[in-house]
């Protein structure tokens, strides 16, 4: 299939060369007639004019046909509280800009066609019109103002402080995976210091901070339907970006400068799969499952998962830096929660050693500073 397409491309390109060859030949023949160039070639002029009328029309029809054919596919399904507000604003804004696009392009191409060169025609000398200028300065300004205020309202809702009952989770990006840290029963995240990072303590937790004791880590993000979640976001090495297409949220992860976001998931993973089952676009097979045995083929709704997408270039593995997100209902989440063990408990020996090391260096620093003071006074 691939080689077929490549051959097709090559054939097309070669055809292009052939056309060049023939046309340059024909052109040179025409040139040798020594025709005066003052006359405008009306035939060529008209062909161009008609193409300007026809091609944009055909293109627009084709684009609308294709867009509506897969209308339920384009946007990712939303599963977040502000999703409906986002989607309706997006819809309204798109209708407005599509209208602008259609009206202005239609005017452009229609005038281009209608006022093509005709012999003995003379253009109208029409250098300016203040009223027109004012009208089309104000009209776009008003339309934009309306859109701006609609967007502003949503922006404030999305970026305001998270509700106090929000579940606190830390998400850390590193080349090339994500780690989530759950704040545990106290809903407080313990401190960290990037210098404490090693192969075991991947998030650089500071074990002298008591709040760390009930924090636990996972490489999947588990959320609860209907419960606000507040994410504290950081990066360990380079920029990453936490993007949740289904939750209409995105925030960069920056080394040294923690960022945050919050949202309320509204559908569990299971509910979403059931919903997608009704969408014909999701009854098609998932392309990743079609390469093996026929019985392994799964429909897209079956393989659906909420996902964290890395959306800021971060290196070689950027394209595969995915974290699975699971939205549970309350009971399921509790079951999952019961199986999780805090980092401090599963790595007791390691933690004890580290606490010792940390206190030693802290003490060491203090004594060094003391000795400096002493030497100064001397």
């Amino acid at each position, binding site marked *: 299939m*691939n080689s077929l397409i490549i051959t097709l491309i090559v054939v097309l*390109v070669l055809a*292009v060369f052939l056309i*060049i060859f023939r046309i340059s030949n024909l052109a040179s023949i025409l040139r040798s007639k020594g025709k005066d*160039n003052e006359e405008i070639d009306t035939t*060529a002029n008209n062909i*161009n004019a008609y193409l300007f009328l026809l*091609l944009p029309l055909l*293109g627009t029809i084709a684009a609308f046909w294709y867009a509506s054919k897969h209308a339920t596919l384009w*946007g*990712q399904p939303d599963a977040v509280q502000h999703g409906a507000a986002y989607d309706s*604003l*997006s819809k309204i*804004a798109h209708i407005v*800009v*599509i209208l602008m*696009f259609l009206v*202005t*392009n239609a005017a452009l191409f229609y*005038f281009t066609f209608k*006022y093509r*060169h005709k012999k003995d025609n*003379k*253009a109208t000398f*029409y*250098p*300016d019109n203040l009223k027109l*200028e004012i009208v*089309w*300065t104000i009209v776009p300004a008003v339309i*934009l103002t309306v*859109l701006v205020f609609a*967007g502003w309202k*949503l*922006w404030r809702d999305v970026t305001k402080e998270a509700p106090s009952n929000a579940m606190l989770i830390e998400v850390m990006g590193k080349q090339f995976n994500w780690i989530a840290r759950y704040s545990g029963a106290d809903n407080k995240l313990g401190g960290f210091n990037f210098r404490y*990072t090693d192969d075991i303590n991947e998030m650089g937790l500071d074990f002298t901070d008591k709040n760390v004791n009930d924090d636990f880590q996972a490489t999947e993000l588990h959320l609860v339907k209907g419960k606000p979640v507040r994410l504290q*976001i950081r990066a*360990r090495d380079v*920029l990453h*970006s936490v*993007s949740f297409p*289904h939750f*209409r949220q995105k*925030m*960069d992860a920056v*080394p*040294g*400068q923690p*960022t945050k976001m919050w949202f309320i998931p509204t559908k569990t993973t299971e509910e979403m799969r059931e919903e997608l089952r009704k969408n014909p*676009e999701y009854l*098609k097979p998932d392309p*990743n499952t079609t390469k093996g045995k026929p019985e392994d083929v799964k429909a*897209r709704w079956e393989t659906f998962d909420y996902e964290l*997408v*890395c959306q800021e*270039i971060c*290196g*070689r593995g*950027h394209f595969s830096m*995915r974290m699975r997100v699971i939205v549970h209902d309350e009971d399921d989440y509790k079951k999952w929660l019961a199986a999780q063990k805090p980092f401090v408990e599963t790595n007791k020996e390691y933690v004890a050693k580290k606490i010792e090391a940390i206190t030693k260096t802290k003490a060491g620093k203090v004594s060094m500073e003391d000795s400096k003071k002493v030497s100064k006074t001397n």
Partner: protein
Amino acid sequence: MASDVAHAHDVHAHEEHHEHHDTFITKYIFSTDHKMIAKQFLITGILWAFVGGLLSILFRLKLGFPDMDYSWLKPLLGKWVAIQDNGTGQLDPEFYLAMVTMHGTIMVFFVLTAGLSGTFSNFLIPLQIGARDMASGFLNMLSYWFFFASSMIMLASFFLDGGPAAGGWVVYPPLSALPQALKGSGSGMTYWLVAMTLFIVSSLLGGINYITTVINLRTKGMTFSRLPLTIWAFFITAIIGLLSFPVLFSAALLLVFDRSLGTSFYLSDIFINGQALDHTGGSAILFQHLFWFLGHPEVYIVLLPALGITSEIIATNARKPIFGYKAMIGSILGIAILSFIVWAHHMFVTGMDPFLGSIFMFLTLIIAVPSAVKAFNYITTLWRGNIRYTPAMLFSIGLVSLFISGGVTGIILGNNALDIYLHDTYYVVAHFHLVMGSASFFGMVAGIYHWFPKMFGRMMDEKLGYIHFWMTFIGVYLVFFPMHFIGIAGFPRRYYEFSAYAAFRDEVYLNLNSFISIAAAVTFGAQLIFGFNFFYSIFRGKRATQNPWNSNALEWTSPINAGHGNWEGQIPFVYRWAYDYSKPNCEKDGFTDFIPQNVPYSMTPHSNLPHENEMIELEKEEMIPHDTTLETLSLLAKK
């Protein structure tokens, strides 16, 4: 006054004397003639455009056909194609990123800044304002050679062991600062920074020259209110460049310090490759602010010259004055000022204060207003015109369409609430490739077709130009329009492939990506027609007449193959604006449908507007007695 004219003659005679002694080196290589320097910029720019285009085809193959066997490209890409056990070749993911990065860098800076501004500002400023050359021919020459050196260093970086820079054309640290994070951030990035520094030097040398020349060297009568819109666009562009490029330089310099001297301007709290780095207290976001303080004005540095060129070409070929000349200047100024205070709309999701985000949304959407005014004015210029489709005109109309189609999605992206979902998706790629990339590219190509006769004294083939236009115009829409759909589906930019995500696995998406890649390859193929037409016509094209498009602007009054100094004898004086096309009653004055800028009002009593008649007294006193070009002009008019 008389002494001025005599002086002009002296200068001319002096230059004539020099020209006989031009060697190959002083004429074609280290030339100080703005026309030759423009051609140098143009040809370098065209070569770069082919390199940049080819890169995009190479990585589009991966996106369109994820399972493709790359082994046939091994002779070209060498070690960047890894042969698997089953004999098929795989493109290296880091080289994919490198190609994306270099495509962006080359297209934005080398093609659409140097190739577009460098060519047409150099070529048209002296010719259209009536000057013998740039204010400093020597600085102008340096400007090209700094660009050339920059080009060579950027080109050399392709052959480095670690490959060229690969962190995206925006080179955000820490990725671009740490060789351990990405191969391309080693010497590839060093080359990138050195090349860009030289490029900035070149840009500044050019810009200072353009500004000085426009302010000081206009011919008699060429007031600012009579400047063609091309010159207004180049002038403002140069000012924007002069104000913003130094900021990029400072951003690059601090990055050099962080990379080489161990400072922490951008780096903080980094643990990489099993090692905690010493850097603390830096801000990666600071770089983004500095970068986009250039980066956003850069969009207009690229776009404004293209719009200027379009204004000139549309007016000439619609045989109508440009509609709303003053509004056009006003919108150029408005865009220029606003372009400096919208940069943070590239950073809505970097964690900056939401309130600041709101401010930048308001400012960003204001800039849509002058842009809309420009589009409406182009459309009104076409209204009731008598349009002749030269290839240049076709590309100019195409530009207006692309400018609108790409511009309207800016309203969506500038809305910070909507940007959250669309940020860094293919929606953004579609947006800026249409409004900035393709539109500016169309402006550049339109300019080449239009001024080719002035540059080389020959015409390009029109039929090939038509084919080139239609293939490119259709192709560009077929490539970038479907990207909106992919973007609404959330597809991230700079992804090597998408199969890791359930959300992006659908045969419709796959087909659409294949379709885009094929369309891109065909569109690239169409550019070969242009390349052929361009180089063939330089040597074999039909010989041009002095004013092939019946244009009013001053450059067409100079001889067909003008020497250094542009005009033999006195530089023509300017008596009117550049847009007296199809003026009522002009045939009574002996003109067909255009009255060039160097024709005094006193020669056109029938077609003058009331306020123009008032000018006659003044020009009779001040200008006409000194204008030695008028005799030949009146002879022409009688004919």
